[in-house]
């Protein structure tokens, strides 16, 4: 059988992920159909794909159309179908009826969902559909975030997995991480558990102070609440909710959404898309922050904490371990918050080895998703800058965390560790 993917269909190409992933396909001179409810929607996606590529010539490989006119012939032509329509089980199942009807046998179907159950999506489909169905979870924006988690169901044919893995790796230049078929896969599960814990601190300490304490110097391109604004509080809530519903352990309690988040959503403070979430920029250009208690915006206070400022100065000079030596020994509640978040990130990530990724990967799979999916320093790199295995176990123990298995010899500084220092931003 010829496994080459020559033609791709993107369903839901008006959306950000659909259009940008489709654009990556076109960048490789592979024909791709951009399908949407309306032709104009597909063309919006095309423009987005050209902006991502910074080139108009990719349009030569893209054919836009709406479902009414182009779906049938496009599906008949496709070697790979990337389904990226709205995150709604019924809508997706209705679309799969059409896919089932027109697709060729052996055409692979990848869904970009990370929150809906793969089994529920595949329920009722033909054996051939099921054996070619898997999740291809891209991160946004795919031009900068190279991670792609691939999850299979029990019915997925390993050949389908191999074909899609090679395509994602070699053509779309993705960092492919095989993940287990679990809610949130690896990346969203870890990140949104962290995000939720961080949002629970806002009522007491304020949004500005929390993003300052857990800011880019702690190994992330963007502060956490700022990231939630970018994602949208409604999406954040939906992901946390889905993760919680699928949890049957202590995570159920940990994933309780703070009440003020609902108040913000009800007030229309969804983040960047409504020009106001945790952050808001006034017409005057002044930045203000949400007061979680009143749901009103309050002026910035420009926090200044000595250990944070010292860490930033040392990172500015490339002295990373020295920077985090000061964080480890920081006294006071601010220091405790930072250390708690580091510990949670490490403990939770390592505890998921074997649960969200295969055991034999060790921490490497999770590391890859967190770096190339979120631009966060990998859990193993945080262990490294905090002084290595023994130092981190001491830190976890002192804070009452269960010590996970799998923390290895992350205390050695390698060329790869040095390359990861880009995630520690001196701001």
């Amino acid at each position: 059988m010829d496994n080459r993917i020559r033609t791709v269909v993107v369903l839901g190409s008006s959306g950000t992920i659909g259009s940008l992933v489709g654009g990556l396909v076109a960048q490789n001179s592979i024909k791709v159909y951009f399908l949407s409810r309306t032709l104009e929607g597909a063309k919006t996606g095309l423009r987005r794909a050209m902006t991502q590529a910074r080139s108009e010539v990719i349009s030569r490989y893209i054919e836009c159309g709406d479902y009414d006119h182009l779906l049938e012939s496009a599906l008949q032509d496709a070697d790979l179908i990337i389904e990226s329509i709205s995150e709604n089980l019924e809508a997706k199942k209705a679309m799969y009826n059409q896919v089932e009807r027109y697709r060729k046998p052996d055409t692979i179907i990848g869904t970009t969902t990370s929150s809906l159950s793969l089994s529920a999506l595949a329920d009722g489909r033909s054996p051939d559909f099921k054996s070619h169905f898997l999740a291809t979870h891209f991160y946004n924006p795919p031009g900068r975030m190279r991670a792609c988690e691939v999850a299979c169901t029990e019915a997925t044919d390993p050949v389908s997995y191999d074909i899609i893995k090679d395509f994602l790796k070699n053509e779309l230049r993705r960092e492919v991480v095989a993940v287990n078929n679990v809610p949130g896969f690896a990346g969203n599960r870890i990140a949104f558990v962290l995000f939720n814990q961080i949002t629970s601190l806002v009522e007491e300490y304020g949004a500005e102070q929390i993003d300052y304490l857990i800011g880019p110097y702690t190994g992330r391109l963007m502060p956490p609440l700022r990231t939630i604004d970018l994602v949208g509080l409604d999406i954040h809530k939906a992901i946390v909710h889905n993760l919680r519903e699928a949890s049957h352990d202590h995570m159920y309690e940990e994933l309780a959404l703070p009440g003020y988040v609902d108040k913000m959503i009800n007030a229309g403070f969804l983040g960047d898309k409504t020009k106001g979430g945790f952050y808001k920029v006034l017409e005057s250009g002044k930045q203000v922050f949400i007061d979680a208690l009143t749901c009103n915006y309050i002026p910035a206070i420009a926090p200044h904490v000595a250990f944070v400022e010292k860490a930033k100065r040392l990172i500015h000079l490339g002295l990373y371990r020295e920077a985090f030596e000061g964080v480890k020994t920081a006294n006071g509640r601010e220091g405790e918050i930072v250390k708690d978040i580091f510990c949670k990130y490490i403990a939770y990530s390592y505890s998921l080895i074997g649960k969200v990724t295969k055991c034999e990967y060790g921490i490497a799979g999770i590391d890859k998703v967190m770096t190339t999916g979120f631009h966060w320093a990998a859990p193993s790199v945080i262990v490294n800058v905090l002084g290595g295995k023994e130092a981190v176990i001491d830190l976890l123990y002192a804070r009452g965390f269960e010590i996970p298995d799998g923390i290895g010899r992350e205390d050695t500084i390698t060329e790869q560790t040095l390359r990861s220092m880009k995630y520690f931003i001196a701001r």
Partner: protein
Amino acid sequence: MQNSKVYILGGYQTDFARNWHTENKHISAMMREAYLGSLISTEVEPGDIDAAFVGNFAGELFCMQGHLGAFFINFDTCFAGLPTSRIEGACASGSLAALSAMAYIKAGFYDLVCVIGVEQMKTLSPDKGGDFLGAAAWYEKEANGIEFPFPKLFGKLGDEYDKRYGLDDKYLARISEINYRNAKNNPNAQTRDWFMSFEHANTIGAYNIIVSGRIKIADCSQVTDGAVALYLASEKFTNEYANRKRLSINDMPQILGWGHTTAPIEFAQKLTDSEKGKYVLPFTRKAITDAFQRAGVGDCWELDCIETHDCFTTTEYMAIDHFGLTNPGESWQAIEEGIIELGGRLPMNPSGGLIGCGHPVGATGTRQLLDAYKQVTSTAGSYQVAGAEKVATLNIGGTATTNVCFIVGT
């Protein structure tokens, strides 16, 4: 002393895709990473280092920091009291730093020298940065008041080829496409995740506008933050080092030959002077032939690949005939026949070159040398040229004013 050998022990390149200004890091942090990485990759003992040289063009202009040699002591106390210097020769600064280290080793003063090439360029807006880069030309005559002086000057290089021999810009587009394609294999290349195709490079559009003359965006090298550290060593030290690492000194790469010439700084004068000669840039040609002669290389076909300066596609077009892949003015032929592509008879820039890998001005010469080292030690990974034993580098400063060519081999 002149016949004493100088070896390369390896080194480390920072990821050229990084923006150290966004990371809010000092230029010395970049040097520190290159230094630490080079210790890891080479397993050189810091206490064995005798001296250090820094290649840097314009730290004072881009980040208000000169005197870069003084920072070594901040990286390692072993540098306390050791001689360090910063060398400047525009885009050839990195090669000049290596040449300086080499001269001291050949003279018998030092056995092990650390060479770091570094430039932090993303601190400035494109127009301000472009203006500062004009200092590598004769600023008052060639750059003052001109928005992007170097694209203009290297556009004129293409015009000169066009005038003397004819030049179809599709060959420049092919050079761009090949460099971007090669860069996709290089995990340290700035453009490894960028889109480029021949069609794009060959088409003027909203995303591929004309910068100056015949130079479009796709014809340009990148504005890059980057540092590269490498070690040059005497035969005596290399023997000990090879023994310690259970290697044979015969497998250790050495600088087999070098050429270093300086042409008049003004580009128009270069062209006037060369009007009656065979080569458009005879001093660039001389740097190459000097290196060939010192290395005992008869012609370019004894090389396995070339890391050449391609600040613009026109520069690489020039390098093709100046290296002797074709007769003067016939560089298009080597492009058309696929000679310079990976898998071709003499690949150029398997790393992606300045267009694909990036061009942190003062680091480029050291990056080329490190890539030459990687090729001849078969450690270039996904951009390895199979069986490479002899590799040339060509690094030019200004409008081919300072020209440095090295031949690296075992």
